[in-house]
């Protein structure tokens, strides 16, 4: 762990922080402007991409993860892996469930069961999105 002591290296740290700050502000404005333009699925990818770059800047520079190798990085990486693990399995479950176990997507409730004749007609019409 290089202990930052010499005055010179400090000076560079200050400018590095300033540059990161400017970078973050620029990215914030760009992501806001991109959101005004509707690009469909692309807008989600761009927004997420910019968010990841911004968070990488904050973590590596502001939180000095760039200098402190070893166990701090391990702790941060494990937390992200566990986040992905939990999200992956829960979303996989939600998307592959018996369709009727998921909440009702279309606002109109399915017609009530009462008259026998309704049984046949509904069989065709019940299409799951």
């Amino acid at each position: 762990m290089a202990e930052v002591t010499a005055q010179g290296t400090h000076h560079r740290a200050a400018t590095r922080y300033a540059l990161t700050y400017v970078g973050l502000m620029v990215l914030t404005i760009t992501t806001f402007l991109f959101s005004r333009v509707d690009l469909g699925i692309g807008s989600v990818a761009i927004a997420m991409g910019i968010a990841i770059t911004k968070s990488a800047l904050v973590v590596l520079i502001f939180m000095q993860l760039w200098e402190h190798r070893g166990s701090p990085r391990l702790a941060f990486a494990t937390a992200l892996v566990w986040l992905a693990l939990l999200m992956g399995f829960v979303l996989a479950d939600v998307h592959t469930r018996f369709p009727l176990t998921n909440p009702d997507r279309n606002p109109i409730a399915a017609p009530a069961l009462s008259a026998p004749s309704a049984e046949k007609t509904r069989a065709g019409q019940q299409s799951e999105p």
Partner: protein
Amino acid sequence: MHPEAIAESHFSSPEVQRHAARLGMWAFLATEILLFAGLFVGYMEYRSLYHESFVQGGKHLDAVLATIETAVLITGSFAVAMAHHYTLTDRNGRAAVGLLIGAATGIAFLALHGVEYVTHFREGALPGKYYTFPEIRTAGASMFFTVYFLLTGLHSLHVLAGTGVLVGLAVLAARGTFSHQNYSAVENGGLYWHLVDLIWIFLYPLLYLIS
């Protein structure tokens, strides 16, 4: 003038003690990330179940105000990073100023966010059974605002806690306790503040921008 920081009796050297404090803080940050992980999972699940309501909900939220809040938090992060830099160069006065600016941005963020909450309360766009907002009527509309209030509520609590920490550190810095040997407290306070900013960096697009 700055006392050579003697390592606490049971550490082998001051450097090991700082490394221990840093590792302990990063382990604590891992728990914070996993605390929000549960809520992000809830957001992703209900977004995939109620896509329509989440899109309309996202549009209804005020993206301009959110952008200002993001800028405020980033400025706070920058100020705290500079404060950490100043403690490394034994300039406690400037460090105190940096920390105070950080705390001020925290309060500003909470104020702006309070404005948002007030508009939602007035409109009736509230979670669960309190949801009486007429414009969005698709299935799961109240679920968007449930997830919105839980995510931003928990985050605001963390901003409040972070502001308290920064004010405490500013008072200590003003008294000149920190030095290039003894800066672990400012570093850990800064790490916590940057993490709070990190979580908002992901909240901001997920809630306000994606359509």
